[in-house]
């Protein structure tokens, strides 16, 4: 990939995390103050959303710096799984599932940022398992 394509890919990843953060935010918005979302769960989800937002920020910053190099292999795997994860996040129906998915998405971002290919595979698996 050219530097521009890498920058565009980082931007897409940022958007992906942005959409996950939006889904979690919507979930909180719809369930806050109801028995469906306890205070401890709310705290966990709020923190997770903050972390996901932080990673989205990181990807947008990386995009600006055009800082992705030699990352084709790792990113290829993520591209393939992105749609599946999006669907999983869209269908969050309880807070345990939401917390599980959010945790997996956070691990995935950490693996991407550190270019850890096996970490990417593991976290993708945990996201899909949480969404099942």
């Amino acid at each position, binding site marked *: 990939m050219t530097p*521009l394509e890498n*920058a*565009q890919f980082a*931007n897409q990843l*940022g*958007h992906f995390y*942005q959409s996950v*953060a*939006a889904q979690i*935010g919507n979930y*909180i*918005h719809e369930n*806050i*103050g109801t028995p469906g979302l306890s205070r401890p769960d*709310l705290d966990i989800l*709020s*923190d997770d*959303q*903050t*972390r996901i*937002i*932080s990673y*989205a*920020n*990181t990807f*947008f*910053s990386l*995009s*600006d710096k055009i800082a992705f190099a030699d990352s084709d292999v790792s990113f290829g795997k993520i591209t393939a799984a992105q749609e599946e994860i999006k669907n999983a996040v869209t269908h969050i129906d309880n807070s345990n599932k939401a917390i599980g998915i959010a945790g997996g998405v956070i691990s995935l971002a950490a693996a991407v940022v550190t270019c850890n290919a096996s970490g990417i595979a593991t976290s993708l698996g945990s996201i899909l398992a949480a969404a099942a």
Partner: protein
Amino acid sequence: MKARQSAESILLALLELLCLCYCVPLKEVVTFTSNSNNALLAVNFSYGYFNYSRDSTYIILKDPGDTVLVRELRNVDCTKCSSAAKLDTLIKKEFTIVAGYYGGLAKLSGSGLINFSPIGKAVSAGTYVGVTISKDEASYFGDLTTVVSDLFTAGYRSKEIKKIVKEHEMAVQEAFDLLILHIDNMQSKIDLVKKEYKTRLENWIDLSKTYREKWLLIDRYKQKSKEFDEAVLYYKNLKKTVQKIKDGDKVLYNSINKLNDESFRKQIMGFAADIIYLNSSTKN
């Protein structure tokens, strides 16, 4: 006297003919390039990376004492506010460079800032398309000097524009891609801060015990949300404007050898009009 009048008439007819050949196709190019130049120069980061860094420092950090989050979110620490301001300057400079390119094309297309005097003098003493103008006769055609200058410059300009557009198209398109990317990154970051702000405020509203506390938080949320929404809208419109210029540039490049085509002229004028409209919406 009659001979001089008929010579004038012939020359005027020739000038009109040349006008049709050279000036008309460049008129649309002038409009498109001038509008693009103006739109790119009008870019104003009233809410840019500096403001974003300042806001995200206190919005995204959960608590001053939360060292885990502080460490994780170091990238938005406001010690970076000064470098964020430099980034604003850098991106603004990129816009200025691309604007300069269109400013140059606009001048070449005939927006009037090129020095005509050498050509004007040549016209007064030379022979053009078979019509010889003597020194004596020159004074009668003094008023036409500028028109003739324009005509001959137009021929030169048209050739130069083709050369420049062909030569730099790839770099220009790539520059646009980068500008669009920067705009999108900025817009997305502001949207993220807004999301975080919303969740945080909802959380605090839920925790607050009194109506007064809740009311103050909601009021604050509304104020800050308005600021974020305006900034996001600005970048959204700016992205559309830049995309429109990019698309227009592609059309110009693809039609560079047929600037006379009616369809090209209509199309490029459509882009020029859209750019004015979009540029005005970024100001509102």
